[in-house]
């Protein structure tokens, strides 16, 4: 999937933060957003990949649109696109 095609409505940078903060911050951000909007989350926490999958699987109000990783910097950045569905 071409990630440039995903139009995120808001970006949240949680690079440097560790479990459970990326998830907590993402949750706090997305509940302020309208239904249908997409939040792009940038994280360096390696656990966040499984965490965001688990969150989307459990919670009824969010959907994981896409996950990518960016190796261009000196630290891998995991990018999560989360959509508020409810």
């Amino acid at each position, binding site marked *: 999937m071409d990630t440039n095609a995903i139009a995120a409505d808001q970006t949240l940078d949680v690079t*440097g*933060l*560790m*479990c*459970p*903060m990326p*998830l*907590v911050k*993402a*949750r*706090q951000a997305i509940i302020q957003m309208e239904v249908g909007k997409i939040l792009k989350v940038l994280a360096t926490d390696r656990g966040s990949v499984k*965490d965001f999958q*688990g*969150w989307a699987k*459990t*919670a*009824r*109000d969010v959907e994981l649109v896409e996950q990518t990783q960016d190796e261009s910097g000196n630290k891998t950045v995991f990018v999560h696109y989360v959509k508020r569905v409810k």
Partner: protein
Amino acid sequence: METSLEINKTGVGGMTQPTSLESRIEVLEARLNELEQQLPEDRITLVVFSGDLDRVLAAFIIATGALAMGEKVSMFFTFWGLNALRKQRILDGKNLPEKMMSMMTPANTGQMGVSKMNFLGMGAKMLRLMMKEKNVETFEGLIELAEGLGATLYSCAMSREVMGISPAELREGTEEAGVAGMLADALRSKSTFFI
């Protein structure tokens, strides 16, 4: 050759099914209601028995993670776990064993030790330092966060009395509960953790 089968006129549970469609729907709705009452909620329950910094830290990480996932969280602190709720030490009004217990347990979360390699508190200090270096939220920060996200913190009244801890020694906003209070939440939770 066709043989007629006997039609089962009794419903589940041996109830005779009413014949009219409307009354059958009514019965179904009542049963559905009853079943819905028995379904677990989007909730987890944690029983925190340990007063070790590392173990209670795990409890608060689970709690905040669950809250972020949209689950409700009930946390019950009992015995050594009560140390995680302590904000001060009050010796006034305590008898000798209670005073001794009070002197030997942490007066606040800053004095909590780790379960392994504590070395008179050096281990706990080192863990806190390592957490800070790795940019992990502080222990106290996680408690505040859990409360802020809506976790309910209960202290076990019985163990609090046994250990001679007065409610004034615990952080504000802590509610009191007994075993039935904990079980009532555990029974409507999808998961219960004992730490």
